[in-house]
């Protein structure tokens, strides 16, 4: 049982908030303290590259809970005070402002830090997108006629490219793959995404790496490609992935390896758990994995809360994510691989709405929905049998 010292949650985003709510739902009435590095109450990140970036939503709409709900939770929320150290034996969290928080359980939900290109910090007009401030700063530079280069052909880069194009900007998407999101979708669906982006006026400059940024007078002027070509741009967005925010755990004795390493129950050590983007855990079906997915933050929080309260089981979700690009919502259950067969099982590619199954050795390993959310969910539930597919 958790007693007087209660639970300290490090990170006040979706994973941290979900942990608080899961603890309460599961019956923990004792103290909970949440410390966040950002100055904001918990807000949602998926809208940052979509509705917030396009201007359709004011920032307040991305808030996860109103003040009244946060107060009702009975947890103490501390903002703008990043954790700087953890004593894992004593279960004590140290923060930048000098707080020492003693706990009976610590939950690490510190998320990610976006990677940058060399010299990026010194160049105005060169952006990353992780925080609300990032989204608002980038939004200022979008709009009709702006020349925008997006570096990175993963989920975030392609979403930003689509949203930027929607504001009227002239957008070029740069990345090393032959089509956007090939790693996440496999080649067939990625080719469809490439067609979508091209039809909507995005210039794809794929199959090439980036060697750096060009600048003049402290302002970015373009992107230098690996082959020496320079793409001129007024604004550059760098979306080349992110690293788990674990630097503050140095000296804690906890194992980090592209994430805080946890067992199958999301436990890094006695009394220490990890949740969300930062957590690398042993998935009993898929091996050692880390998921940068919104739904994982919530589901893993529930699993960690159960573990803290003395119950719980191995955490083994079917990986799931979605992306919205232009008017297309793509949803993926499971883990597509490049070598999987890709069969449309409902709808038609030509009709712009379909569900496809990925198969390896006859077994369905993933399900994709393209503007067919309900049908994709039903197919996934049936084909994946509520069980994660076998690891590649």
């Amino acid at each position, binding site marked *: 049982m958790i007693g007087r010292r209660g639970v300290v949650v490090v990170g006040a985003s979706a994973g941290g908030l979900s942990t608080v709510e899961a603890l309460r*739902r599961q019956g923990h009435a004792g103290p909970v303290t949440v410390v966040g590095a950002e100055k904001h109450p918990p807000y949602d990140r998926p809208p940052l590259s979509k509705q917030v970036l396009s201007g359709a939503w004011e920032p307040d709409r991305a808030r996860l809970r109103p003040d009244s709900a946060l107060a009702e939770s009975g947890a103490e929320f501390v903002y703008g005070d990043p954790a700087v150290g953890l004593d894992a034996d004593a279960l004590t969290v140290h923060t930048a402002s000098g707080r020492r928080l003693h706990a009976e359980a610590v939950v690490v939900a510190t998320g990610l830090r976006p990677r940058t290109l060399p010299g990026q910090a010194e160049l105005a007009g060169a952006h990353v997108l992780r925080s609300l401030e990032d989204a608002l700063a980038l939004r200022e530079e979008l709009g009709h006629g702006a020349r925008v280069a997006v570096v990175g052909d993963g989920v975030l880069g392609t979403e930003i490219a689509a949203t930027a194009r929607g504001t009227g900007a002239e957008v070029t998407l740069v990345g090393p793959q032959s089509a956007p999101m090939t790693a996440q979708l496999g080649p067939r669906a990625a080719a469809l995404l490439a067609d979508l982006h091209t039809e909507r006026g995005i210039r794809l400059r794929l199959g090439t790496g980036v060697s750096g940024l060009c600048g003049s007078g402290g302002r970015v002027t373009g992107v230098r490609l690996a082959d020496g070509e320079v793409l001129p741009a007024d604004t550059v967005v760098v979306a080349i992935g992110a690293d788990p925010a674990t630097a503050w755990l140095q000296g804690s004795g906890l194992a980090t390896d592209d994430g805080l390493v946890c067992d199958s129950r999301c436990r890094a050590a006695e009394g220490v758990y990890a949740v969300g983007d930062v957590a690398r855990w042993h998935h009993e079906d898929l091996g050692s994995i880390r998921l940068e997915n919104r*739904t994982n933050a*919530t589901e893993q929080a529930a699993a960690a809360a159960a573990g803290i309260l003395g119950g719980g089981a191995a955490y083994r979700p079917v990986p799931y994510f979605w992306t919205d690009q232009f008017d297309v919502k793509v949803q993926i259950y499971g883990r597509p691989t490049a070598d999987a067969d890709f069969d449309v099982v409902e709808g038609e590619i030509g009709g712009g709405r379909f569900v496809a199954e990925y198969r390896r050795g006859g077994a369905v390993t993933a399900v994709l929905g393209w503007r067919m959310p309900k*049908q994709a969910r039903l197919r996934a539930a049936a084909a994946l049998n509520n069980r994660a597919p076998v690891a590649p």
Partner: protein
Amino acid sequence: MKVTVDQDTCVASGQCVMAAEDVFDQRDEDGIAVVLEPEPSPERAADVRQAAAVCPALAIAVQE
């Protein structure tokens, strides 16, 4: 108990349907959640709270 869904915020993941399928459904055309039973019976309360908790957009409001 009263339950509502903010359809502008909904991201069509269908998690609510998996948690409480007699209370929620998804529109066939775009997957946006709809409430089938706006005042669920007390026996459904736990599942409805679970649906609200797992919604990735926190688009479900429950009034006890």
